[in-house]
């Protein structure tokens, strides 16, 4: 082992936060604002707000009109599986698969980026509260273990994080999708508005604007959305929530923040005498040197799988399978939403209407199955929601009837007809056998073991998908759409980029990795507040819940520190 050349004091902080994405950024902000000298360790490069090299480039200014060369694509053999992320304009936010391999007993699409800000730069921004229908689900139907918290435990934290992050949306008064502390909603267009009315009237379901972390008005020194819909490239206006534009500048302002990029946390340093972590072991990604950093508390916010890797790789005499493994659940119960199923249709009304601007969200249809006695389904438990949008087709539509020449040129300068599509996002149950483990069969660029995935969707998800198609058709037809077509292309787990569960919260150290405050049962000064902690997956996009759980855990951690309990 290498020792730091500097004195131990120089590498000792009050708190260490591993990761700088959505959860890590929030942990940094909260801990710094509460007065803790905080070290944020990020395995990738530095990205300061504004370091978005492609944000203002037009299609003709990008090499190959935004397409990545066949040669370069070899670095992205797994990251390219989404079909939309590996472009000239966004490829720099995704990892090089050759340097960062993983193994797949069954296919798993692990989409990620290693840089300051993590996936908060290229996330989808949909932000929904979970309700007690979600927090009580495991207890009621017996899949997984009971969540150790209920909506009342997190509601005020949702208020808090929404106020800072800036979530635009509309309150609908639905028990399955609690109202929030929203900025003014971005509007539905005329076709969506008409669908909202008809679907409500005929089916009693709600179509609302997709609640997203996009600023419909300027707040906290960040600019309002300019409706360019280039979020994935990074926003020069700071008009959507990212760590870079929001939480990290707030943390920096306190004077308590240190960020160390290129710092791969290999494992925690565990002290069996105190049963606490004393710090972390870091590999410098550029020099390959090993360093140690010390702190009173550690927040693991390295992503569901990144944090799980660190716990699994912290092998001690007491816990040879990794810190937090005493329950036998560490690495298990891996979940992701299943999606890419739904329908689309055309409508021949509103041909005299169009829109201006590129709205960075669509609509959302909250869950309507298994939410009360009247909506019980025999075929499956839990539920799903839809994301979608209506738009007029552009020049990329096939203008088949106009072969060539002046007629074709004329045709491509006019918009096509209106169409509307919707894609369902469904809950995945927590199955113990869906797991990830460490493997030495191959190693990463730094000689570390890699994660090996064995995860699949099962019968409940498959039966749910049948209903997802049927209900989408039902709604489009109720709303007056024609030529309605369904699609179903499940892909593999991971593609939803909502990995959850491999270090779940619970009520007992025998069946869970974390307690109700996100503390590792086996080391109480270690908190895990990213997707790893999730006890079930619900069907809503999960990032807002990571934000709320992180702020709540940071508040608890500082109180416990002051009480000398950890």
């Amino acid at each position, binding site marked *: 082992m290498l020792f730091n050349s500097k004195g131990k004091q120089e590498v000792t902080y009050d708190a260490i936060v591993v990761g700088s994405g959505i959860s890590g950024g929030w942990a940094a902000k909260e801990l710094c604002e509460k007065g803790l000298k905080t070290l944020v360790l990020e395995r990738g490069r530095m990205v300061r707000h504004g370091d978005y090299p492609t944000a203002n480039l037009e299609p003709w200014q990008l090499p190959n009109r935004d397409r990545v060369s066949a040669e370069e694509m070899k670095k992205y053999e797994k990251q390219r599986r989404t079909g939309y992320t590996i472009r000239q304009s966004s490829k720099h936010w995704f990892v090089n698969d050759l340097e960062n391999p993983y193994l797949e007993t069954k296919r798993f699409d692990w989409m990620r980026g290693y840089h300051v800000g993590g996936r908060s730069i290229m996330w989808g921004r949909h932000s929904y509260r979970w309700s007690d229908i979600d927090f009580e689900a495991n207890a009621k139907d017996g899949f997984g273990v009971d969540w150790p918290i209920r909506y009342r435990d997190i509601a005020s934290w949702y208020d808090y994080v929404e106020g800072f992050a800036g979530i635009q949306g509309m309150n609908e008064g639905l028990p399955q999708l609690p109202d929030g502390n929203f900025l003014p909603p971005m509007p539905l267009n005329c076709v969506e508005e008409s669908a909202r009315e008809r679907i409500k009237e005929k089916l009693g379901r709600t179509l609302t604007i997709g609640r997203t972390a996009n600023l419909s008005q300027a707040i906290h020194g960040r600019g309002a959305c300019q*409706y360019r819909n280039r979020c994935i490239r990074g926003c020069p206006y700071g008009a959507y929530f990212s760590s870079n534009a929001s939480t990290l500048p707030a943390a920096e302002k306190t004077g308590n923040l240190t960020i160390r990029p290129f710092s791969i946390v290999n494992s925690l340093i565990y002290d069996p005498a105190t049963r606490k972590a004393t710090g972390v072991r870091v590999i410098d990604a550029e020099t390959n040197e090993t360093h140690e950093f010390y702190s009173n508390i550690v927040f693991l916010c390295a992503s569901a799988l990144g944090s799980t890797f660190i716990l699994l790789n912290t092998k001690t005499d007491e816990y040879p399978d990794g810190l937090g493994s005493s329950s036998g659940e560490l690495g298990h119960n891996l979940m992701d939403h299943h999606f890419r199923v739904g329908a689309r249709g055309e409508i021949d009304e509103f041909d005299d*209407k169009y829109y201006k601007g590129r709205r960075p969200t669509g609509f959302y249809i909250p869950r309507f199955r298994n939410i009360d006695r009247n909506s019980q389904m025999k075929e499956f438990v839990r539920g799903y929601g839809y994301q979608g949008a209506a738009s007029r087709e552009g020049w990329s539509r096939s203008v088949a009837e106009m072969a060539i020449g002046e007629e*074709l040129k004329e045709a491509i300068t006019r918009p096509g007809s209106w169409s509307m599509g919707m894609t369902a996002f469904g809950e995945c149950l927590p199955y113990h056998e869906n797991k990830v483990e460490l493997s030495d069969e191959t190693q990463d660029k730094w000689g570390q073991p890699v994660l090996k995935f064995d995860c699949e969707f099962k019968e409940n998800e498959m039966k749910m998908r049948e209903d997802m198609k049927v209900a989408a058709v039902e709604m489009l037809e109720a709303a007056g759409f024609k030529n309605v077509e369904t699609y179903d292309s499940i892909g593999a787990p991971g593609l939803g980029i909502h990995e959850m569960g491999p270090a779940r919260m619970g009520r007992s150290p025998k069946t869970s990795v974390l307690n109700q405050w996100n503390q590792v049962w086996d080391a109480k000064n270690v908190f895990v507040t990213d997707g790893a902690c999730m006890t079930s997956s619900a069907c809503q996009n999960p990032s807002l819940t990571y934000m709320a759980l992180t702020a709540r855990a940071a508040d608890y951690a500082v109180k416990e520190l002051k009480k000398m309990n950890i």
Partner: protein
Amino acid sequence: MTNQSQISRREALRKTSLLVGSGLAASTVAAIMSGCQAPLDPDWTPSFFSVEHSETLAHIAETILPKTDTPGALDAKVHRYIDELAANVYSKNRQDELMSGLAEFEAQCKSKFSKAFAKLGAEQRKEFLQQLHEESKAMEESTGGALSFFEDMRQLTIAGFCTSEIGATQVLKYDPIPGSYEPCIPYEDVGGVWAY
């Protein structure tokens, strides 16, 4: 290719070897070799295609989306876009498909008009592409949607044109920083299709 044209090409080559020494650009030389027409894009050298092939592609694109009272495919340099994709993005299979498609295209053109496509007049070019469009539609119906060379060219031309600066900003409606979202406005207020 007939013996006659081989001889004349050899003759041309002999003559141009003198010109090379005087410092003419390779594209100019090629243009001279291909029939003494002025090069379509003299300041540029293709990466993947020969100059001759690239000129054929430029003529195909211009026939598909011609200059009218607004700029056309040649103004938007659509042939450069096709060359860029072929050189950098396409797989070997896709490249081969494009090359054999182009060869067959020229062979068909010569059997119909006894001339290379680039040497046809604008009306003949249009007539030939219209014919290919009809054949392409029939083929799609019988093969269940396989992409013909013509349809490939048509789609590449549309995409290349609409994502070019000239196409996006002068022919389509271009609004890089809208600043607001107007969800439902009369179509006449826009009067065209958004570039993106």
